[in-house]
């Protein structure tokens, strides 16, 4: 037994087999129904935008990691997730060079400038979209109707009654590629939840405050839940672990805050949709939320028996 070469390392000596790569891969799988729905409704445009955005994001990530003399970790899938997400939240008619530019901005300004994976305060895909929205106002609000449908403004711009609830649910309305079909988004969300990668507190918080605000202002809660980016934002954007709170209470605050801001913008703001800004604003509030919602440590604030 003298020739044994035993490894000495600190405890614990066993680990769960989950990895960051698996989390990212599961996210991509969860996006498949949404991708399928957007291909069904928008055909080649969906494929074009998602592929270009994904490729742009991965390439940007690799270039930045090279420039920063860091190990190339694009294999972890995080950049691909950002790229695919960005591709799914732009209008189908967006020119190719614009979506590529958006993905470059998302990864560079949105992520690598802050130090790469885990360090960015804002959801990188939404940073990309925000930059596109302010840079190319016309292209980013020119909504192509899905095939076989004849509306061209989004239901949100036209307000209630512009689309039936079943249309909103299945997705045959104008809108960003991946955001129109509530059914596809819910399927993806259920899969993520089942796999343990989605904390229900954030989406539920968003839904609760959207519904509450809609009732409070005398609007249709179902219309507000199903139209625009609320569902997609709640299920795929707000739950981004890097940019959402780490405490349980904080996740409730975060979700409720997003829903509130969405409805403030939709009801009284000058934009028809507010999901993107709501999430970005609450991203900014996340460090503060974390600080204010620290759980009480076991045994602290407990009196001794003397």
């Amino acid at each position, binding site marked *: *037994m003298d020739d*044994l*070469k*035993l*490894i*000495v*390392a*600190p*405890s*614990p*000596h*066993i*680990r*769960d087999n*989950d*990895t*960051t790569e*698996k*989390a990212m891969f599961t996210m991509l799988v969860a996006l498949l129904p949404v991708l399928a729905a957007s291909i069904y409704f928008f055909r080649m445009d969906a494929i074009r935008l998602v592929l270009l955005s994904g490729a742009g994001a991965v390439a940007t990530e690799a270039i930045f990691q090279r420039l920063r003399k860091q190990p190339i*970790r694009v294999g*972890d899938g*995080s950049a691909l997730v950002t790229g695919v997400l960005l591709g799914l939240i732009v209008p189908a008619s967006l020119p190719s060079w614009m979506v590529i530019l958006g993905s470059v901005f998302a990864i560079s300004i949105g992520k690598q400038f802050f130090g*790469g*994976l*885990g*360090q960015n305060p804002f959801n990188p895909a939404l940073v990309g979209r925000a930059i596109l929205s302010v840079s190319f106002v016309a292209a980013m609000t020119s909504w192509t109707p899905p095939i076989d449908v004849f509306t061209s403004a989004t239901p949100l711009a036209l307000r209630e009654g512009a689309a039936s609830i079943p249309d909103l649910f299945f997705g045959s309305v104008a809108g960003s590629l991946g955001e129109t079909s509530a059914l596809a988004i819910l399927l993806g969300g259920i899969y993520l939840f089942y796999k343990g990668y989605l904390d229900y507190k954030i989406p539920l918080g968003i839904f609760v405050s959207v519904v509450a605000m809609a009732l409070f202002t005398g609007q249709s809660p179902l219309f507000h839940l199903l139209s625009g980016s609320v569902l997609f934002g709640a299920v795929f954007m707000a739950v981004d*672990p*890097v940019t*959402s*709170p*780490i*405490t*349980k209470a904080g996740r409730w605050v975060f979700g409720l805050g997003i829903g509130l801001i969405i409805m403030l913008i939709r009801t009284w703001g000058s934009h028809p949709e507010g999901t993107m800004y709501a999430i970005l604003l609450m991203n900014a509030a996340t460090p503060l939320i*974390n600080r204010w919602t*620290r*759980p*009480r*440590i*076991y*045994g*602290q604030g*407990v*009196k*001794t*028996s*003397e």
Partner: protein
Amino acid sequence: MRRVGSFFGGIYPKSAKASTAGTPIQLLAAPDTLVVSLLQHSGVEAKPVVAKGDEVLKGQLIAEAGDAISAPVHSPVSGKVVAIEPRAHQMGHSVTAIVIENDGQDTWIEKKGHSDPVQLDAKTILDRIRESGIVGMGGAGFPTAPKLTPAQGITLDYLIINGCECDPYATSDERLMIEYASDIILGAQLMAKVLGARKIVIAVEENTPEAFAALKDKAGAIEVVALPTKYPSGGERQLIQAITGREVPSGSLPQQAGVIVINVATARAVALALRDGEPSISRVVTVAGKPIAQPQNFMVPIGTPLEHLVEAAGGFSQIPRKVVVGGVLMGGAQFDLQAPVIKTTTCMIALGEAESVTPDSSPCIKCARCVDVCPAQLLPLKLEAFGMNERFDDAREYGALDCIECGACVYICPAKRPLLQYIRFAKMEIIAREKTPS
């Protein structure tokens, strides 16, 4: 049965108990040479009272307690002291040990047992526990006599006997509960008498139904509860929370919450000491893990080298890359299998190549699973960052000293980050700084 509560956080590692849980404890004969360490407990080393060349009997005192927080050591066999010198120890450094050559006769000292020890008065029981060298056998090794002597003014109402063996491999306590339930009950009654505790609760995990039934059968008025199987249910503070709903105040001992927690093997050692007059010279050790040919539980004389246990279990059927003593979640990795079994050695687990290599870590994605599983309700990812950046004041403010080092955060981390290493580093620095006033 009373509904038992739970504790914060926790993880559900895959159980690897099946290979040893179903087989009775096998008595292992003492090897030719035993290495009896002077440090088998937390606190100060014991002081030898024998010299090289002395003949000793089985159960004879060979080292006395070094201080109030220490414990005496007894000879596990009859034979001759051949050396008193530094020897390999499970903690990684050498510790003085009394090396005894076994004469194979097992000649006992005169045993002073008592047919009905519950009749003895509290002081006699406590003295006997102290003299018998009994220490916490669940792993921490805190000497039992001082533990049963709470500070002035403390009212204890609970004595919890801890049979929650939450490590995924260990089954030594489980087998002990199945095979020696009445000894454990007797030990519990004796300690309750010392403490004047009003309530005795024996706690096991739900994944040990046979142990639960065995204890229940002998328990009489003593309550036996089964806790949901979740790591670290065997943690002292977690067990207190689950059973009493109380929390141990930060920085205090469990007695401050009116509770004393004693491991089942310790309870049996108390029964042996009082009823049979046998000091703490043997214990049950689980020998398991993929590379072990015949995993099983052994009743082992203290001082048996670990490599002797491997041989008794059929040797290695494949090359081990890691050997862990005390459980795969909190135990220490060994590099020298000549280190002996001590009173706290619950199990020895061998791991193969794939299980032994520490995975590369990647950046934290703030998924906060470590936060979700932390039984102390800490924010391990923040503490790791504070430790890494040497922000020790922040680490203290965020409760680094309340970390129980259970390792649940590291277990669950998908980025495979060395969270606990940085928390330990921060704890050490905080404690060192507070000792040296600036």
